[in-house]
């Protein structure tokens, strides 16, 4: 079992120095997600302006993988268009479901390719996807007014 492959420097760095952490206003959609197997939790908000993701803010408790993944998510989608953000979501989900077979495109996924190794550990894939699931859900809620609570 190669731990370095799982706990890449990039991941540990995001874990220790999370980008964009904390809950901010304004926001149109908020999602609370829980991983029942380990008790990891995230509350994530999105603020959409026109076709842009103007802010992603979050508060979470969890393991290094889930916390680093939320930080990487912030870097990737904050300030991008909603369409681009959804494309990253699809790409990252595919990478996580690749069972170690995919490497990920560094051009588009940037730091998130460091999670390629995580896809070999089925028990940890859910950790890596928790923040992304919250993002997806919050986006849906943002486009459905009146539904902000989980």
């Amino acid at each position: 079992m190669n731990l370095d492959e799982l706990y890449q420097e990039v991941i540990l760095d995001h874990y220790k120095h999370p980008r964009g952490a904390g809950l901010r206003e304004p926001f149109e959609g908020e999602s609370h997600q829980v991983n029942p197997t380990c008790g990891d939790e995230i509350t994530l908000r999105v603020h959409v302006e026109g076709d842009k993701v103007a802010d992603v803010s979050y508060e979470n408790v969890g393991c290094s993988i889930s916390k680093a993944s939320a930080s990487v998510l912030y870097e990737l989608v904050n300030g991008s268009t909603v369409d681009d953000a959804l494309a990253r979501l699809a790409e990252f989900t595919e990478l996580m479901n690749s069972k170690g077979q995919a490497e990920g495109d560094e051009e588009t996924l940037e730091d998130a390719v460091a999670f390629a190794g995580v896809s070999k550990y089925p028990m940890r894939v859910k950790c890596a996807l928790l923040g992304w699931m919250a993002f997806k859900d919050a986006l849906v809620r943002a486009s459905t007014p009146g539904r902000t609570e989980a």
Partner: protein
Amino acid sequence: MEAASKLDVESIRADFPILRRMIGDKPLAYLDSAATSQKPVQVVEAMRRFTDHSNANISRSVHTLGSEATEAYEGARAKVAAFIGAPSPDEVVFTKNSTEAINLLAYAFQNAAFDPSADPRFKLGPGDEIVVTEMEHHANLIPWQQLALRTGATLKWIGVTDHGRLDLGCVPEVITERCKVVSFTAVSNLLGTVNPTSQITARAREVGALVGLDASQSVPHIPVDVTELGVDFIAFTGHKMLGPTGIGVLWAKADLLDAMPPFLTGGSMIKTVTMEKTVFAPAPAKFEAGTPPIAEAVGLAAAVDYLDKLGMENVRNHEKELAGYMLEQLETVDGLEVVGPRVPIGRSATVSFTFEGVHPHDVGQVLDAEGIAVRVGHHCAKPVCDRFGVNATTRASGYVYNTREEIDRLVEALGQVRKVFG
């Protein structure tokens, strides 16, 4: 160390082929028996022999295999009954696991609500109370929670002190004249606390409530005698006591089983049936609808034989020693905090801990890379996690085949965790 272990751990280990497994290039150190124990060759062999030689459905077959299978299944029941000091094998009901055993009991109350002729001991409604503790596994919490919701009864609980013990001082207030049933864990699966039972059972008797134990973490590890305990029911499971998965036990006093409406209905649990009406068979058959786990019962009987041969007193002493050593060694690790009693008195060899700044999931992952299997998460005991303000813990649990060397490896590997996340 007091009471030197009388277990020959080396020869015990030889009976468990899985303990020779390598995880990557590291030998396995299995410290997760509180989740499920490993099975000795004797258990696997007994099941294989039964399947290869005597497999048939039980009860009504007149052919040779059928009677051998019935004998094996009923023999397993008798063996389990003797193991827990039950007055009669008929008081032993085979279930799927502890969870089903506790549900069977909770549903007896629920079903009694619809039956005007039901025994008043099982009649629950608004104003009546059910008592559990704050340290229950979800298996002994949620069935009662649901029962309270459906009947309008109130669920109450005995709290846990900062030291991880039951707050027995509040027992007289929590268990009142309105209480109909008290169900509490004998040994906490997360804290490792071995609960004293007499004060709670005495109070339950005083108010006329039924009282029983979730014995999932006690029957595999300490001598249990239901008569001595003076309880009405206990639930436990085969796979935590060297037996197979898929079989558990509800033991209850004969007169209670007689009074309880059945949980599952169908084949094998009847006396007479017409299109309009059914008369149920007496217990335990009344509670064993459908084809039961027959090979699993055979496996469980072999596990009971194995534990009997070791001697449950010896098992207890071995684990007491392990618990003491584990606590002593873990306390030397910087940033580690034990969740639960910190002294090896009234304590099982199950130790939960947090590790400053590192999430249990990450601890477990690094330990796995060292070949060490521990459990991480909330261990199906979320309320007790909340009680101690933690989201999750890392839990190491020992059994008959664990050694001090494995605990040394655990402690050493925790240094490795520190290195990765330091």
